[in-house]
């Protein structure tokens, strides 16, 4: 039972002999530097890259937000044109949701889930790399629309015939992050080239294909994580011993695999309308634009929970750690998370109350929406129960996590307000809704994710972020955020409509809009400071031990940064909060003698996920250019499909490979702190 690809165990992958895959190509296992990062299948490195891209796009989306707030700082402003304003708020929403929050959550999934369940990697390491690169391709496609937009504004395309024949020249998406039909679709009969008249330019096509590609990335990652969590738990790690963050990852992944197909199909249908003259949402041929709203929100509402549940999981890890107490009501927190996820599929029409659903559906969706407040409230009371009577340490992650609770709660309250359909009719499309979901998404999700970054950064890089800067940044974020979005409740109820590029003086909106803009800039400075602190920490921060917070879950039992094989020996779990029990309780973690001299199996690195992701990039750039009428560009799409197919095919053919890595002898390993070595054998 041996395989020629398995050499004797090596101490470092650099000691490997060059090894050929089943295809006869040299595997990139020994690469270092850039090539190592491009071919890595290590969930920790993939997680770090997800995090880096997400933080970058957070800043991009933040700049877009600041441009929006600058425009709205005073009435009748002309800082940006109406068209640019539409593009800014569309790209701001899309960027923050799909390129900021989701990948930052994915960064935590990647880095933490295998560590928390006692595994050495995810179930499908190469699929994980594929998810990352496909996400990067989708992000690039979406944002390349800005490049075209600036090219258009700078007059780069003036001499091209395809450019001259364009009816609409908006190159960046301008439909809002929901791209409602028929604005995003077509009207009237298709011409000989199968194009029906449209309302918008190719920006919408960039959005369609970009979201489609990001959907592929999210789906692939979610299949992988569900598989990992269900199938790769260490011995003794029963489902009800899983850390809550891992539980929320499982629920979130389930939501993704069940919600994304609806938007995938809706996007296909919209693409057929725009590219091939189909009539799914074309009103002049009987298409029902309202169908787009239904399909979008069947995806869109679970998406809200996809964004918030990981942050809830993070907070559920941080509060017990800094309260010195076990999480209050663990089973009910897990159950509530699952119920929130399930109910999330039954409330989509509350986004559509004002479309006139009829009395019975409206009442049903209103009641179900109110019902979601119950499990959410249960979680909040459990978090309060966790810190109640605890010895609280106000570290930066704890401050942010506490901020999460009450800011998220404010967002929850206004959410309950517009679950009531008559009230919602007043609030729909006003700044009140903006205030609501920014309290949930910034006050909730952003604070939660920042708390997570400050909590796990010492584990990821072995360096401790500067606490002073962290406190300052947290204060600025919470202050700026409340200044920016608190007044919007009032503005909304006073009638200011959202998605409108300016407003006239004399409506009584001037003061609070100006305050909101000041708040937005304070918030921007705070987020930038927080991120700058983290980036500085990653390279220059003060080194810290492997368990600086007195952590509770398995990842804190490992060295910081974590060795590439994670666990020199597989842990056998005896309790929930396994590591805390190991340190302070009676139930020790045992270790299986499966590492050591025999070595630990490491999966081989591969170029193929990157190649397949590159195919998606070609498709993603080709499709909108096809829509522009650029000659011969269809070949780019065909080439992209071919590259994607070849990437996946060769990936299957090259074989998983793998090599054995020697782990340090027991006792000398930094993965097993001193007090544990006694229990190891």
């Amino acid at each position: 039972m041996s395989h020629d690809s398995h050499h004797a165990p090596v101490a470092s992958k650099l000691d490997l002999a060059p090894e050929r895959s089943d295809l006869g190509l040299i595997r990139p296992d020994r690469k270092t530097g850039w090539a190592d990062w491009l071919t890595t299948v290590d969930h920790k490195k993939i997680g770090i890259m997800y995090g880096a891209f997400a933080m970058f796009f957070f800043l991009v989306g933040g700049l877009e937000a600041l441009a929006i707030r600058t425009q709205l700082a005073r009435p009748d402003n002309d800082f940006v044109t109406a068209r640019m304003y539409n593009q800014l708020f569309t790209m701001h929403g899309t960027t923050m949701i799909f390129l900021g929050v989701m990948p930052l959550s994915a960064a935590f999934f990647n880095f933490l889930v295998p560590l928390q369940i006692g595994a050495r990697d995810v179930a499908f390491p190469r699929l994980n790399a594929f998810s990352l690169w496909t996400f990067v391709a989708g992000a690039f496609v979406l944002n390349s629309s800005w490049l075209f937009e600036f090219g258009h504004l700078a007059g780069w395309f003036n001499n091209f015939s395809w450019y001259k024949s364009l009816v609409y020249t908006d190159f960046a998406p301008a439909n809002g992050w929901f791209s409602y039909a028929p604005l995003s679709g077509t009207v009237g009969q298709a011409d000989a080239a199968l194009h029906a008249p449209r309302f918008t330019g190719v920006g919408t096509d960039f959005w369609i294909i970009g979201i489609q590609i990001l959907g592929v990335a999210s789906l692939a990652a979610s299949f992988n994580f569900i598989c990992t969590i269900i199938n790769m738990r260490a011995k003794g790690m029963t489902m009800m011993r899983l850390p809550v963050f891992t539980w929320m990852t499982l629920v979130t992944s389930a939501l993704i695999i069940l919600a994304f197909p609806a938007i995938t199909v809706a996007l296909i249908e919209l693409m057929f309308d725009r590219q091939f003259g189909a009539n799914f949402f074309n009103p002049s041929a009987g298409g029902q634009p309202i169908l787009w709203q239904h399909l979008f929100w069947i995806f869109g509402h679970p998406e809200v929970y996809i964004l918030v549940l990981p942050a809830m999981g993070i907070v559920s890890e941080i509060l017990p750690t800094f309260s010195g107490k076990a999480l209050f009501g663990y089973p009910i927190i897990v159950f509530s998370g699952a119920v929130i996820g399930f109910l999330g599929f039954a409330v989509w029409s509350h986004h559509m109350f004002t479309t006139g659903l009829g009395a019975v559906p409206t009442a049903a969706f209103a009641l179900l929406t109110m019902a979601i407040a119950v499990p959410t409230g249960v979680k909040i009371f459990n978090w309060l129960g966790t810190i109640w009577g605890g010895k609280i340490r106000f570290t930066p992650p704890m401050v942010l996590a506490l901020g999460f609770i009450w800011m998220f709660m404010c967002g929850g309250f206004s959410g309950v307000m517009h679950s009531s359909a008559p009230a919602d009719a007043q609030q729909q499309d006003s700044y009140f809704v903006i205030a609501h979901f920014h309290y949930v998404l910034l006050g909730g999700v952003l604070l939660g994710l920042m708390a997570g970054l400050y909590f796990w950064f010492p584990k990821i890089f072995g360096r401790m972020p500067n606490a002073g800067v962290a406190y300052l940044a947290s204060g600025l974020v919470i202050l700026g955020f409340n200044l920016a979005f608190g007044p919007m409740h009032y503005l909304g109820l006073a009638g200011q409509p959202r998605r409108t590029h300016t407003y006239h003086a004399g409506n009584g909106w001037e003061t609070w809009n100006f305050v909101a803009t000041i708040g937005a800039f304070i918030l921007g400075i705070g987020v930038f400071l927080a991120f700058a602190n983290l980036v500085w920490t990653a390279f220059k921060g003060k080194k810290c031990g492997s368990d600086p917070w007195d952590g509770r879950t398995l990842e804190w039992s490992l060295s910081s940064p974590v060795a590439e094989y994670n666990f020199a020996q597989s842990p056998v779990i005896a309790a929930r909060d396994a590591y805390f029990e190991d340190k302070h309780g009676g139930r020790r973690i045992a270790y299986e003698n499966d590492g050591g001299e025999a070595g630990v199996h490491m999966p081989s690195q591969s170029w193929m996920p990157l190649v397949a992701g590159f195919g998606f990039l070609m498709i993603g750039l080709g499709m909108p250019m096809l829509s522009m009428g650029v000659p011969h560009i269809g070949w780019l799409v065909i080439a992209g499909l071919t590259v994607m197919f070849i990437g996946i095919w060769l990936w299957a053919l090259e074989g998983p490979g793998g090599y054995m890595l020697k782990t340090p002898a027991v006792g000398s390993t930094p993965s097993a702190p001193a007090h544990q070595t006694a229990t190891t054998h």
Partner: protein
Amino acid sequence: MSDVAPSPAFLQEEVRRYHHFITLALWLAAITGVEIVLIFLPVPMALILTVLCLLSAIKFFAVIMWFMHLIYDHRLLFWLFVTGLALAFATFTAVLSLFAVERVDTKWFS
């Protein structure tokens, strides 16, 4: 090919499954035949529709249980799949009933 020869008990089980597959294939063909005849029978439409739905559900579950081995495999797989199936069924039943004909203005187009 295989380095480890399958055990006799396993082979016996495979032979048993083989016979199940053949029986099922015959049933599937027969049910499809019945469906095609059914639609031309002068019987009330509601009855035919009920029977048609029932028959295709039977075919559907027969294929997932036997051809797709759910009856032999871990029960978790069955519940995972049924979760997706049930959610899809419930969601789209709701969508279809939300599109009540009398609430949609279709006069423009026909």
